[in-house]
């Protein structure tokens, strides 16, 4: 099954939130999901400790550079999706994780700083594709977006599209329920109401569907 790597050298871009939303939604839709917490801040592990893990989800903590490739290999099996959450830093762990990815997702807030730093991940992917002589599918998802799109957001989106970057739609909006995942654990369906839950679930599911569509397309090709 595919390995999805959530990578951006920019901290605070929404990597752990995107990874958690994706993992819980894919598991809810029937996949067995193994989540590797490679971030020393241990956001995924903290989420996992808050409440019993939702069905079909497993979280492995403290996966470091030395054991990353081996750990992915052990879990990259038919019937299992692996999601790797990385620290927001330009590290060797990031380049190793990307080398093992079937899809790299780069979360990015719609700010010039996030876009400038996030693009470094895209450059790394392109270089690794050449070095490893294989295509590494990748896409950007905007995070913490608002209903009314700023001019800056539109500008960054246009610029990325012009460069041929695959943008995942829908973006992940700024929602109380998403940040509350790390307070209450579990998934959006098990959590007590935090803001507009229906809209949060629809947003999360739409994002997971869009990721699944990319994985299924890659597999068919």
């Amino acid at each position: 099954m595919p390995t999805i790597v959530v990578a951006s050298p920019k901290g605070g871009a929404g990597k752990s939130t995107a990874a958690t939303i994706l993992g819980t939604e894919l598991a809810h839709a029937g996949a067995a999901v193994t989540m590797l917490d490679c971030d020393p801040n241990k956001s995924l592990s903290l989420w996992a400790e808050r409440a019993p893990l939702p069905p079909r989800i497993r979280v492995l903590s403290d996966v470091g550079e030395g054991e990353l490739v081996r750990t992915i290999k052990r879990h990259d099996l038919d019937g299992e999706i692996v999601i790797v959450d990385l620290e927001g830093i330009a590290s060797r762990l990031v380049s190793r994780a990307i080398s093992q990815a079937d899809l790299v997702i780069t979360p990015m807030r719609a700010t010039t700083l996030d876009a400038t730093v996030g693009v470094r991940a895209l450059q790394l992917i392109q270089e690794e594709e050449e070095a490893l002589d294989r295509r590494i599918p990748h896409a950007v998802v905007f995070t913490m977006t608002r209903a009314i799109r700023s001019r800056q957001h539109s500008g960054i989106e246009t610029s990325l599209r012009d460069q041929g970057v695959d943008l995942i739609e829908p973006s992940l909006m700024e929602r109380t329920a998403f940040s509350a995942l790390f307070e209450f654990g579990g998934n959006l369906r098990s959590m007590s109401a935090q803001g507009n839950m229906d809209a949060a679930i629809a947003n999360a599911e739409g994002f997971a569907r869009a990721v699944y569509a990319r994985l299924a397309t890659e597999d068919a090709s």
Partner: protein
Amino acid sequence: MSDKPFSIDLGRLRSREKDRSSAAVERADRVGEELGFIDREPAKKRGRKPSPRTGQVHAKVLPPVADEIANEARRRGVQQGVIIEEAWDLYKNQIK
């Protein structure tokens, strides 16, 4: 959101071959380093680890001296720290 419930067809997702050889990992490392994606793992701490019993860091002494202290403590049925405390007393008395 689609009206159809989101359900994953596991048959459509398969594990794909990837080069996991050390040579491939090295190539990825090299490319990453050129773009500033370098080793940032915290360096392993040198020296002795704290005692699991007391949390104290063991005194660094030459191995033969450590063996002698350990043997004497074992012979007398006391903790090694007792020997070191006695030695400290002797030292203090000597410099007075």
